[in-house]
């Protein structure tokens, strides 16, 4: 897994792109824990979100989960093909399975996120 990813405790991952925009997705741990995905709701492009605010929903047979913004900013792009191809989330969660791109208000907010090792140790201690 690419080492440049950061993770929120709520299981979203963040990758800074060359243009300064942040790509956000759902961790493979979360996708596996949810299983049987049936529905995903994406936000409108242009929507402003605050860190920790729900920007979308992902629904599995067993439960509905919110997707939370890892940082504050503006949604500048969404992966519109994803809700019709939810299996992509399981097959390529850190690539084709990206969810939204956010232009961060304050890129320093990234510092509050977990690195890969810290996230792994967080989910490693959680029961499935």
């Amino acid at each position: 897994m690419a080492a440049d990813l950061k993770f929120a405790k709520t299981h979203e991952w963040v990758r800074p792109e060359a243009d300064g925009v942040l790509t956000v997705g759902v961790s493979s741990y979360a996708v596996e824990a949810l299983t049987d995905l049936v529905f995903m709701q994406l936000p409108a492009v242009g929507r402003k979100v605050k860190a920790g605010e729900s920007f979308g929903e992902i629904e599995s047979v067993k439960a509905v989960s919110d997707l939370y913004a890892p940082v504050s900013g503006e949604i500048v792009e969404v992966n519109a093909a994803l809700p019709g191809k939810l299996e992509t989330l399981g097959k390529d969660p850190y690539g084709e399975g990206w969810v939204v791109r956010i232009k961060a208000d304050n890129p320093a907010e990234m510092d509050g996120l977990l690195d890969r090792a810290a996230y792994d140790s967080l989910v490693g201690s959680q029961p499935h």
Partner: protein
Amino acid sequence: MVDFAGWRMPVQYASIVEEHLATRLAAGIFDVSHMGRLTIGGTAAVGWLESLLTRKVAGIDVGRVRYTLITSDAGGQPVVLDDALVSRDADAADGTERLALVVNASNRDRVVAWLTSCLPAAGVTFADRTLETAMIAVQGPLAIQIVGSLCTPADASRIAGLGNYRATSAVVAGHVAAVSRTGYTGEDGVELVVDAAAATPVWEAIHAAGAPLGLRACGLGARDTLRLEAGMPLYGHELREDSDPSAIGLDLAVNLEGRSFPGAGHYGGLRKHPAGRVRVGLTFDSKRSAREGDAVMQGNRQVGVVTSGSFAPTLGTAVAMAMVDRDVASPGTPVEGVIRDSRQPAVVTPLPFYQRDKRRA
């Protein structure tokens, strides 16, 4: 793993959808040991249960299983305490009748307390055998074949010949089991009650025999989606303390003629004067379902509330059960489920959503 009425249980072993489809197409094995298993014996046992259960117990034959409600009028107003299966086992050595109740895990304590409070001074023995025994459900078109492969030919043939809601005793994988042709999935199959010490070997033997044929271990998640497709009510969701059994479609579980179970007059009155919301199925035009507690709307008017809802793996779409006003209860009526901030179109659908092909052997 989740806590379910004090039991640690898996929601899924791998995937709810895979477990669900395996049960429809081959077989599923379910650890349902959380269900309460109560035994009743003594010279007055039949008469005692006849006075307490909504379903007629007097005259029940050995090997018969009946779906019943357990009602109480302890608080003045009659309430539905639980739904249950009552069965008559083979007679005791002294010739007295023996019966058994299978009740919901979530209601076991209060059902035991209620029944205990109703015990006569003599003539009835009543025991909660839940912790001494285990219960394993094997469900699906191959269930009978798989269980039979672990029995003597005579026992296998007796199990294969059992009618629905009939029970017998057999030796399964070397262990004595009470075998009933019952289940909570809408499929053919059996439920086995064995001594707790036999639970693991019997489970492993069935799993080993069935896995090559497509049997899968199934958790609570698949149990819920299977019973939802089969239109079966779940206590605490479709069925509640203040439920009118007629409105939920459970008239067959409430025998009123000549009966005096707690609340018989009350439930008789409800049947004569239908009122209030009724249970219906809803089929959504998406994979996304309204869930328990979500409002059902028609235009600006709330016409009901969802009691259970999920993506239905066999149907490939979302379905729900709901209690709705009678004027929107006809099949084909368009309504909407309120899912968070959005509305999802649905149509009222007859229950069950799924019915197995009973011509299939």
